[in-house]
């Protein structure tokens, strides 16, 4: 196809050839072949072949294609020119989607990280967050549960708020919010500084993650089928269980007289006769299993002059490592763009999903985790027996969790959600330099929860129960903007101006009851204790958005944006906020004076901007008397909230400076330093309770986050057959509070009495607890430090000290891939270093009689005789409430997230087909200082902990669904 026919001259020469890619030696479609200095050009066809007529032997052909290095070849006497294109690692021309706009990588002026599909999808999961783990400098992802379908928590550049949410804003295909299946994702762009997130104003304090789903790139219709099948097993990491004999030895210590050092075996055997060792119940074995994980994805894409389409269907089915738990997801996506006229494109995308999840009863893990190996949950016939009145049970709780577990119908907890997102985008060119873009998304989703328990199930609930809940959420967002794009000489200018409105409606209905007939489990059949709840809510926001970009000769870049947001979250007077940002970059390597063959990219960039946070829930500024209760069936209003008409946005001023360096196509480096100050923190602040309210949302103080990020991508070895790629990233973040005012000290404590303290110069979430001082070698008593700095045996006179924070200062990721011929071996891992987490010392203190069967860590040593240096003291003196600094442990770990070995069948065998087989292991190994099921700590253990402000407590295995290790076999087939 000739782009523009040149004048016919006698000296014309016709050149033919075939273009291949250096990577797989396969024909390359769509390579642009231009005669240098003219407008004459063609593109290569399906077989990589081209024919071009040039003006003569002096002509020079320029071969270019996205993702490859541009080649220039003089025609001379050649009539056939075959070219092998080298892949371009710099990808400076790669288009990076930034949400409202796109830029080439070279034009970017802020801290942005792009994660490609290939890097993203090494692990098999339904959650994008897990795919990002360890892959983006400055982004921490915590995956604290192995429960199928569980979501991760993601933090960009530290934690900037006490009580407001910290999750990043997700933008799918240019529109805020939306749903997607990870298999349909083409790229993920993480926007980290205000230079790029400023455009999202009040929603962007947690950073922005821009997700772009797939679209066709070539005319060829491409079919892809990918299957992952594997097996997952619970990973208990360093938390092991004792067997009967070990437990018997262990609790014998309970009867040691610390003064004489002698064990009173008579009393011990009265309390626990030796015969208890005849039972050795493997509690974990009773509920855990090797589980099947499957994911199938089918897609079809292609394009023509008139339209471009992509369709994908994904089915994900993960059994839980706990029997009777699972997660299934079906996702269907259809992306269609119609090129109606030269000036009008319409895009119509739809994504549909259905999620189904069976969760364990939240108490199952608690009771199994605390199971005593001496207790037999079954009677002589092998049926689960009640513990409530059994006399031969050591478990503290009179509960046999196996009853509810014996039959799926006895105790079921099912969650389903269904959703639909429909995007409609109009892209209209009004003038060569002016276009109008309107993008609208309608969203509908519903969540359904069903729970029932039969009366014989032994948990700490009396009788049977049925519960049902449904939530319907619907709404939309519409963005309408004018975009300008104009270049003259060395100047180029782009910009946009628009208006955005969003609104979401939510309604919820919940019912419960008791007294179920045999075998029936819906709300209607409940005969007593019926209760109904339900509510409705609306949230809305409108915004004006604008952005301008200017660059001179691809050397100097300047970007500015300005956004005005109005939200229903706040009182009329505080509803409006403005979010400006500016950023600039200087591409030194494009300067004329800069002449280096080795350094292909050298760029200095800086940005300043403001973002905000508003998501604390509706109406937090209002005085409220809530009607969501009753007294003896009479209407009752409870004073739940004190008015605070001054409540306003939490805003972050962000400054970033960075440097990019590219050395040929073999190495690239990106380093950024930032300082973010979040002002007017939304604090759920304690009040003196005697005034009638325990807390109130207020704006108070600031938090500063500062740190750096470094990432590098290198290809140390690159030969015809062998290639080695390596990526490494590391980041450091420091965090402290300021502006609280002199003498203002806020202490927050959670249900367990675990406390953290907030004041000027303290790190967020600074632990505040009694100071522990180890086990006294002489007496075996635990010791603490009192107000005078002296050691004391009296827990209640121990002093409180500030003792570090669970916030992560150092973290990073490393990944590497070796390719040899058609084999590829890759692995990735991540690490965390320098934080302090609180792990309950349940298993490592003999504080109470037969509490559980967990094996203390290798580092633990029991005190037996005077002089013993020990960590576990004599049980005689252990206080019941023992939250102290002895429970703090460094949260350091390094995890090998994934190892994959794959083989791609050569084209010579497969002809037009592509086939890759791969074997992989996710979560292969963990190296850690933490004793417990897993060193990854969810910031907030319970939903309410966000309000109490206490973060960083490790949930013991007795409370959480253990993480998993999985082995996967993958087939990827393309034609």
């Amino acid at each position, binding site marked *: 196809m000739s782009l523009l026919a040149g004048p016919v001259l006698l000296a014309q020469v016709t050149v033919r050839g075939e273009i291949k890619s250096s990577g797989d030696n396969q024909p390359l479609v769509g390579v642009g072949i231009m005669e240098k200095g003219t407008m004459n050009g063609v593109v290569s066809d399906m077989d990589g072949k081209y024919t071009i007529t040039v003006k003569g032997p002096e002509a020079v052909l320029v071969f270019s294609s996205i993702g490859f290095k541009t080649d220039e070849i003089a025609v001379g006497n050649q009539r056939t020119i075959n070219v092998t294109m080298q892949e371009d690692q710099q990808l400076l021309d790669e288009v990076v989607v930034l949400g409202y706009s796109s830029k080439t990588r070279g034009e970017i002026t802020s801290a942005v990280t792009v994660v490609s599909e290939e890097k993203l999808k090494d692990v098999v999961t339904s959650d994008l967050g897990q795919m990002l783990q360890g892959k983006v400098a400055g982004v921490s992802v915590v995956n604290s549960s192995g429960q199928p379908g569980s979501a991760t928590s993601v933090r960009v550049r530290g934690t900037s708020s006490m009580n407001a949410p910290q999750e990043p804003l997700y933008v799918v295909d240019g529109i805020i919010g939306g749903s997607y299946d990870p298999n349909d994702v083409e790229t993920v762009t993480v926007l980290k500084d205000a230079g790029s997130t400023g455009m999202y104003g009040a929603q962007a304090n947690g950073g922005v993650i821009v997700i772009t789903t797939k679209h066709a790139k070539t005319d060829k219709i491409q079919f892809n089928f990918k299957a992952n099948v594997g097996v997952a097993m619970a990973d208990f990491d360093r938390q092991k269980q004792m067997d009967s004999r070990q437990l018997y030895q262990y609790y014998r210590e309970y*009867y040691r007289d610390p003064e004489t050092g002698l064990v009173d075996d008579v*009393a*011990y055997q*009265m*309390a626990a006769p030796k015969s208890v060792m005849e039972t050795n119940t493997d509690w974990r074995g009773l509920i855990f299993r090797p589980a099947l994980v499957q994911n199938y994805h089918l897609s079809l894409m292609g394009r023509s002059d008139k339209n471009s389409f992509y369709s994908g269907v994904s089915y994900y089915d993960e059994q839980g490592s706990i029997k009777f738990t699972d997660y299934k997801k079906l996702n269907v996506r259809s992306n269609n763009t119609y090129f109606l006229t030269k000036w*009008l494109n319409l895009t119509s995308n739809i994504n549909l999903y259905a999620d189904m999840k069976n969760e364990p009863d939240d108490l199952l893990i608690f009771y199994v985790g605390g199971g005593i190996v001496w207790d037999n949950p079954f009677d002589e016939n092998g049926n689960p027996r009640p513990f*409530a*009145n059994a*006399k031969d049970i050591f478990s*503290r709780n009179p509960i046999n969790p196996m009853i509810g577990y014996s039959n799926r119908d006895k105790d079921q907890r099912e969650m389903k959600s269904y959703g639909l997102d429909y995007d409609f985008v109009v892209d209209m060119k009004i003038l060569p330099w002016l276009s109008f873009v*309107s993008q609208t998304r309608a969203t509908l989703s519903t969540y359904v929860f069903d729970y029932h328990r039969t009366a014989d199930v*032994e948990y700490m*609930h*009396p009788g049977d129960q049925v519960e049902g809940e449904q939530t319907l959420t619907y709404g*939309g967002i519409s963005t*309408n903007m004018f975009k300008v794009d104009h270049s003259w000489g060395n100047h180029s200018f782009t910009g946009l101006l628009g*208006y955005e409105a*969003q609104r979401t409606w939510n309604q919820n209905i919940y019912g419960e009851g008791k007294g179920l007939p045999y075998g029936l489990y819906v709300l209607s059949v409940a005969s007593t*204790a019926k209760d109904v709840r339900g*509510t*409705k*809510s609306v*949230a*809305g*926001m*409108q915004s004006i958005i604008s952005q301008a970009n200017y660059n001179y000769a691809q050397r100097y870049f300047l970007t500015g944006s300005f956004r005005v947001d109005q939200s*229903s979250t706040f009182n009329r007077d505080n509803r409006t906020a403005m979010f400006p940002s500016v950023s600039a970059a200087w591409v030194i390597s494009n300067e004329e004076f800069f002449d280096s063959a080795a350094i292909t990219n050298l760029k200095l960039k800086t940005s300043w901007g403001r973002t905000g946070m508003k998501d604390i829930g*509706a*109406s937090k500024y*209002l005085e*409220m*008397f*809530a009607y*969501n*209760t009753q*007294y*003896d069936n009479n209407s*009752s*209003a409870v*004073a*739940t*909230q004190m*008015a605070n008409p001054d409540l306003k946005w939490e805003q972050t001023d962000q400054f970033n400076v960075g440097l990019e360096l590219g050395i040929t196509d073999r190495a690239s480096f990106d380093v950024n330093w930032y300082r973010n100050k979040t002002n007017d923190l939304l604090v759920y602040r304690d009040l*003196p*309770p*005697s*005034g009638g309210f*325990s807390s109130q949302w207020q704006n108070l103080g600031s938090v500063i986050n500062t740190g750096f990020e470094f990432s590098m991508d290198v290809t140390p070895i690159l030969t015809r057959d062998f290639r080695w790629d390596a990526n490494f990233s590391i980041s450091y973040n420091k965090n402290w509070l300021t502006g609280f005012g002199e003498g203002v000290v806020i202490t927050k404590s959670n*249900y367990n009495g675990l406390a953290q303290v907030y004041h000027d110069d303290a790190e967020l979430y600074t632990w505040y607890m009694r100071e522990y001082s180890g086990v006294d070698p002489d007496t075996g008593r635990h010791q603490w430090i009192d*107000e005078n700095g002296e050691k004391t045996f009296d827990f*209640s*006179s121990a002093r409180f000290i500030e003792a570090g924070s669970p916030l992560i200062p150092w973290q990073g990721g490393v990944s590497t891939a070796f390719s040899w011929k058609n084999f590829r071996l890759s692995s990735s891992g991540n690490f965390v270093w320098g934080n302090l987490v609180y792990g309950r010392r349940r298993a490592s203190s003999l*504080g*109470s*009689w037969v509490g559980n069967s967990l094996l203390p860590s290798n580092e633990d040593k029991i005190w037996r005789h005077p002089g013993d240096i020990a960590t576990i003291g004599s049980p*005689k003196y252990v206080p*019941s*409430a023992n939250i102290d600094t002895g429970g703090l442990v460094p949260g350091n770990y390094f995890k090998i997230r994934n190892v994959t070995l794959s083989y791609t069948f050569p084209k010579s065998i497969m002809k037009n087909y592509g086939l890759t087989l791969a074997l992989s292991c996710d979560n292969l190994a963990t190296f850690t200082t933490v004793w417990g099921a897993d060193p990854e700590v969810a910031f907030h253990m319970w939903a*309410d902990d966000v*309000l109490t402000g206490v973060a960083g407590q490790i949930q013991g295995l007795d409370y959480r669904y253990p993480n998993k290790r999985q082995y996967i076999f993958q087939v990827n087939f393309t034609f």
Partner: protein
Amino acid sequence: MKKIFKYFVVLMGGALLAGCDLDIAPADSLTGEQMSASPTGLVDILNGCYATMKDFPAGESGENYWWGRQYFQMADFASDDIVYGQKTPDDLNMIFRYDERAPQTGNFRSFWSINYKIIYTTNVALATIAKKEELSAEEQYLRGEALLIKAFCLHTLVKMYAKQYDPATAATDKGVIIRYDSTDAELKDRETVAETYAYILELLKQAETDMTEGSSERVNNKGFASLAAVQALLSRVYLFMQDWDKCIEYSTKVINNNNYALEDADSFPSYFTETFNRKETIWCMKFNQIDNKNSSAVASMIYKPGGGCWGEEGYSKSLLDEMNFSSEKYQGVDTRISFVCDINPKNGLNLYPCAKHSMQDGIPTLNSPVLFRLAEMYFNRAEANAHKGNKAEAIKDLNEIIKHRMDFAAAAAKGYTENSYYLTEANIKTDIVDLVLSQKRTEFSFEAHRLFDLLRNKKDIVRNYWGYHVDYVPNQSPGQEPGLSFPGVVTKYNYPRLVYPIPQQEKLNNPAVTQNEGYEN
């Protein structure tokens, strides 16, 4: 092109319209202003006070922090009535183990907070009434109800968080913070014990007038406070103040009220399963099945295992002895023994669970806890008379209770006469006040009286039985009960840590408040 432009205009316009209205009111709440405008606002706010007593508190992550659980546990678990049978990191540990109490402890904080929330709510109700120029009979009655609830919460606070009223020191001992009206949120210290009690009396006297002059249909529901509840609280408050004559006066008022009567031996054993329907009840917290607190119920710790209960606590040996539990003469005769459940061995301890907070509608964790019942008036009057030296009067009231609690038919079957159960001046060997306390203990165990009965009368707490209130090791501790010299057995009545600490949250945010003796700030 034209068509498309039209379409854009519609799109753009639609978006603008949708975004305009950002004034969004919550669907399940009203503001104070709206409450005043609502015709039912006043009643709803008052009902909210009762709901706050029975509900899981909003904004607390622990379900154990609801008001009623603390009302009973903080009173009874600190006394000599209950064995602590399973060491636990739960905050209730700090009730049994005085030395581990701290201003940070969650249950002490939540109970303090909820009482003040209720006080604030009554102040909002009183402010709403104060705005009216003329009160209807209903409104006047409701004002009395608000005043009573406020007085009740203040008295609950002062008996837990301050030293007991001692006429010698009440004028200087710290009482609790008083919030006079709904705008009173200043940072301030506690009033003295004397001032606190004086204010309680002031509230109650106005309440008595209001509820006498006003009227409401609520009087028929024992889930709501009534005139008799005002007088019962006056009787209790005067008893605490050692104003014996006033105590006798108000006790008598309630006893003479024909709306109330003591249960009999045949009805008493089932009394706690439907307190709200019984003639003896003056005021109870009405629980329906949907209000069931399940494993956080008062019963969850003291009732036998299963059905939401752990069965970790039980009757103490000294209480069982006082109840003549092992006596053949009283077994099957004294109906109060019927609440003692079968033995539940745990950790080498013989725990006897208690059924007083269970089995409404047959549910182990459900009942409607009693705040005032008529029997207390007899005991208050008896104790006042005992202190005055009116032995005969005191014994008369005690015998009235005995008469209604003993199954004399069963006694006769065993060969005991009715008279052999009654007290006479001749057969009393102990001090008459001790006798009243002993009888009251038998009657009111697990009903939040015993701790204050001891402390008011300057009696030490003697817990000479095994349990985790002392350093106990199962099966290792010798078979005999611990002697009086065993550490942790005897606690002097004036041991500072018997008074609960002012919660740290109050102290940190209201530096003016004085902490109790024995606690660091």
